[in-house]
Each structure stands twice: as structure tokens, then as C-alpha cells.
């Protein structure tokens, strides 16, 4: 039946190309919308995702790493003394101003991490960017993908932060650009100065669990010991970041609606052309029924057409997406992780299948006796 389905599609090139364009547009739009959303979400959660910290302790009012209070510094020693904790280290996060190459001052998130562990510093660093470089005063790490905003900075270049001069000591890798602020890492003392952060307070306590301990169990113990604070695992931090973003911005809804719209556009185009094709061939379908095609045969025939259209349209849609992504350059984050590729493939199949449902319904209702009519 696949061969027959393919022949029917090939035999009507104009209609098939029209249908294919519908699938390609749909795949492209679904990919683009979901990819942009994934890129934005990746930026939002990149701090949580790129860290090796097992458990975080933060203010009870914390909604995200960007919307949090501070803790007394004694929380660090309290956490360190809890069973199952291998180490605990302070992390501060505050706001500073950074001057871009074009002279514009922009807000920056300054993270302060404590030597020698530098807990809270993302694990992926550019070659030559050792955490130990932050030990020297006035040294900062920037996100490598933000370099263009600062005139292609190189290690050793100077940068102005909150009116103070700092030296770029290295770069972080793997963090999306402008996520959503410029991120900057310094040793905790310098960071306090850049962000005017109180000396006896910290933003987070980063906790590593002892071998054999589960992060969840340690989290529970810490929470029991320090009921006035909020304790969460790395995964929970990721989820919290995402939730905060989704609740605070309409971005998820906008891109979600865009994706649904893309699917509907595809379904509409495919549905109309398939239905039109079926109407043109009603007598042929009547003949098939008369000579013994069962419902299952006809379903397989039209189902195969839907699958073939998906199979042809999906890679072309991906190609269009890849082209647009290439032309957009690195400043626009449009990731295409495997789960997104497979989801869009499944959605394409679903779109084509759903679109062919109307045509299938029409064919199943064809009276085989139609073949006797003139």
C-alpha cells in the first residue's frame, strides 16, 4: 500500500508539492518557536544546570536566583555541621553595572565564590581559565558568549564594573549569551565590593553531599535543622528558575501558542489538499472498495500518504530551520536538542495524520456503487 500511496502522490505533483510546503512550513515554525523557547529557558536555568552543587540553601523568600534575599553568614557553618554534608561554601549574588564597548551601562549579575573550592562557579570553563585565577584581587570571569558585547575581550583586558576596574581573567563556557543578564564571577571579597553586598551576609550556601548520601536526604536534614531558610536540590533549583520565568513572563504562552498555530497551519494546508485530492479520486476509491478494499486497506493507503508527507516534509523543514539558525548567528540561541527533534517529528506525524482524518472519513463513506454511475 505504501507504493500505491507514493504513486498517487507523485501522480499529482502540483497538489503534492503544495501539501509538502504546508508540512515544511509547519515543521519550520514548530522548530523555530520551540527552539527559541528552549533557548530562552536554557538561559534562565543555565546557572542551575551548569553547577555541580548538590544542594542549595537560600532565603525563605527565594523565588529564583534573581529574586532572593540574603542569609546570615552563620548558615554556612550550620550547613557544614549537618550530617551527610561533605562541604558547605558561601556564594553571594548581587547587582553591578558594567560598561559595554559602546559605552552603555548595563546591569550585571555578580556572583562571588570562595576559594579554594569556588563552589557556585559553573564547571565548564574556557581553556586556560582556571578557577585559581580568581584568587588574585580584581579578577573576573565573563561568559565567553558575551564577549562580543565587550569588544572581543581577551584575558588580561580591563573592564569597568560599578565604577571599579577589573581584569578579565577567564571565560565560562556553555552558558547562553545574556542569560538573561550578563553574568560575572569573582572571588567573594571582590564581588561584595562590586555589588555593595553586606560583609556578614551571603546569598546562598552551596552544599556538596558526602559520598553515599542522597541530595534529597541531605536537603531534608538541612531543612529540619534550619527551618527559617529554603533548601533545594539542583533539580529543584532548575525547576524553580523555570517556574519563576513561566509565571513572570508570557514568553512560554506566546511561543506555545506560536507552536500550536504552526501545527494548525500545517494541518490546515495538508488537510485541504489531501481532501481535494481524495475528492478528485472519489471514483477510484469507489473502485477500490468495489473490488474488495476493506476499511483497513483504505486506512493504510491514506495513512501511508500522511506518513510519506511527514517523512518528506520533516527533513526539509529542519533544513529551513538550520538555514535560519545559521543566518541568525550565535547571538540568537536556537538549540535543537534530540528531545525537540523527536517531539517535532512526532508532532509532524500527528499533524499529517489528523489532517488526513477528514479525507479518510470521506473515503470510508464512499459508496462502492458509485462506480456504476456515469
Amino acid at each position: 500500500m505504501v507504493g500505491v500511496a507514493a504513486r498517487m502522490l507523485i501522480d499529482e505533483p502540483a497538489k503534492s508539492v503544495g501539501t509538502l510546503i504546508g508540512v515544511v512550513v509547519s515543521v519550520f515554525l514548530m522548530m523555530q518557536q520551540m527552539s527559541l523557547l528552549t533557548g530562552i529557558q536554557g538561559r534562565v536555568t543555565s546557572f542551575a544546570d551548569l553547577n555541580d552543587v548538590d544542594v542549595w540553601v537560600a532565603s525563605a523568600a527565594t523565588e529564583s536566583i534573581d529574586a532572593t534575599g540574603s542569609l546570615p553568614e552563620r548558615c554556612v557553618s550550620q550547613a557544614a555541621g549537618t550530617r551527610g554534608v561533605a562541604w558547605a561554601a558561601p556564594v553571594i549574588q548581587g547587582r553591578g553595572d558594567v560598561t559595554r564597548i559602546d559605552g552603555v551601562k548595563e546591569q550585571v549579575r555578580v556572583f562571588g565564590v570562595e576559594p579554594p573550592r569556588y563552589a557556585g562557579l559553573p564547571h565548564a570553563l574556557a581553556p586556560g581559565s582556571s578557577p585559581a585565577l580568581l584568587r588574585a584581587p580584581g579578577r573576573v570571569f565573563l561568559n565567553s558568549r558575551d564577549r562580543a558585547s565587550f569588544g572581543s575581550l581577551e584575558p588580561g583586558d580591563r573592564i569597568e564594573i560599578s565604577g571599579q576596574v577589573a581584569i578579565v581573567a577567564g571565560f565560562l563556557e556553555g552558558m547562553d549569551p545574556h542569560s538573561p543578564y550578563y553574568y560575572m564571577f569573582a572571588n567573594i571579597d571582590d564581588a561584595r565590593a562590586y555589588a555593595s553586598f553586606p560583609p556578614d551576609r551571603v546569598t546562598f550556601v552551596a552544599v556538596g553531599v558526602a559520598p553515599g548520601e542522597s541530595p534529597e536526604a541531605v536537603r531534608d536534614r538541612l531543612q529540619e535543622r534550619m527551618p527559617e531558610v529554603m533548601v533545594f536540590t539542583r533539580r529543584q533549583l532548575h525547576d524553580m528558575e523555570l517556574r519563576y520565568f513561566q509565571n513572570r513572563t508570557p514568553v512560554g504562552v506566546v511561543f506555545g501558542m506560536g507552536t500550536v498555530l504552526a501545527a494548525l497551519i500545517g494541518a490546515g494546508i495538508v488537510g485541504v489538499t489531501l481532501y481535494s485530492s481524495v475528492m478528485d479520486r472519489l471514483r477510484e476509491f469507489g473502485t477500490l472498495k468495489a473490488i474488495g478494499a476493506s476499511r483497513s486497506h483504505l486506512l493504510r493507503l491514506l495513512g501511508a500518504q500522511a506518513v510519506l508527507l511527514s517523512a518528506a516534509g520533516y527533513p526539509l523543514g529542519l533544513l529551513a530551520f538550520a538555514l535560519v539558525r545559521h543566518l541568525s548567528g550565535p547571538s540568537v540561541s536556537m538549540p535543537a536538542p534530540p528531545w525537540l527533534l523527536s517531539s517535532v517529528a512526532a508532532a509532524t506525524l500527528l499533524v499529517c495524520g489528523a489532517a488526513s482524518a477528514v479525507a479518510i472519513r470521506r473515503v470510508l463513506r464512499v459508496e462502492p456503487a458509485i462506480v456504476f454511475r456515469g
Partner: protein
Amino acid sequence: MSTRAQTVLTGRGVGKVFGADELAVRALHPADIEVRRGEVLVIMGPSGSGKTTLLSILGLLLRPSEGEVLLHGETLAAADEESLTRLRRDNIGFVFQHMSLLSSLSALENVAMPLLMKGVGSKRRADLAREMLAAVGLAGKEQAKPRQLSGGQQQRVAIARALVTGAAVLLCDEPTASLDAASGRNVLALLRQSATQMGRAVVIVTHDERVREFGDRMVEVADGVAGPVRCSREEGESHDDRVA
């Protein structure tokens, strides 16, 4: 072989009414009809007389409003749509007035189509279809698309498609209507050959007077009433039908 044994398809008191109540239109009054192996039954009548309705009922494409159809002596009154489809696939071949070949497929693929639906493997399908095309005189035309064939050739492809499964009954609706005289004669000869040499039961519905002489028996339908007509090829009372 007795007459009873030769009977493949029987219409017993089959009639058809379309619509209901005051909108009801009777297309066919109750009629008895037998279709026998190895003979050509011609159903004649003018347009709108009900002959196509009768053919649709015999072809299991239309359920009769009254009476019943028996295939190989088994009543089909209780058969569901899927069963009727299977029975058509296995027992009945159709030749339509408007060729009704699948335009996207080659002659070979068109002939192989019923075999595909029967689940026959691709090699066997191609072999049988090729043989059947040769049998109807279309060797060498296997890859031709319907639009590349003449009307007579298309009708022969349709006959090959109807014969390829070994169906016991061949139901033909106006098989010569769209053909010139020579092509029409060829097609009728082929149908005659299907009956006499292959032992198929062939039913031809037509209003073409040229077909009259090809039938072993004839039924005439007028205003929805089907009745037997003695034709020149009939051989005495033993071959007489009991068409009412």
C-alpha cells in the same frame, strides 16, 4: 453437472426501494435470478430501468430492500460490510463502463491490485498480473499508464483485473459502451472466452443491442421489472432459466 450445481450467484426475490415513506422510489421489483458457471448472462434494458441496481445487488455492492442474495448457495442476508467486502474480493470481478482504473498505477499494478488486497506476495502478484495481461492480449503494455492506453485496451486491463483473482463471477456494467465497434467485439470475445474456457459466470449489463447475441441467457429489465427473454444461443429447456 446439474443446473443447481452450476449456480454461483442467486438473487431470490431481490428488490430495491430507495428512500422511505412518501419519498420512496422503487428501483427494482422483486426478481429471481441465477448466475451460472460457464455461461454469459446478459441483462438488457434502457437507461433507468433498474438493471444497474440489479447488478449492484448481485455484486454485493447494494443490499436489497427485500429478498436475499446467495453466493455458492449460502445466504448473505446477515453478512456485515466487512464480510461482503471480503466475499467480493474473493468471488467477484468487476468491469465497469467507465474503466475505473487507478490513473497513478501502471497496467500491471492495476491488475495486481486485487491480489495486493488479498495479501499475495509481490513477486507472485507481478507474475499473475503479467500472465493475465498476456491472456487479454496486452503483453508488452505492463508499464503503460491508463492514459497511455486506448479505451479498448483500458477495458481489457479492467477485465484482466477482474479475472486475476480467479473470481467465479464477472459482473460487467456496459463494458462496450465507451468503445468503438471493433474494440467492443474484442472485449465481448474476451468475456465469452472467460465463460467458456475459464468457466467463469459472466454477467453483462447493457443497453447495447450488439451484445444480445453474445449471451447464453438474457434478462430484460424495464421499469424495474426483470424478466427472462429467450435468446438465440439458449439450448432447449434444460438450459432455460427460472427468472421471474
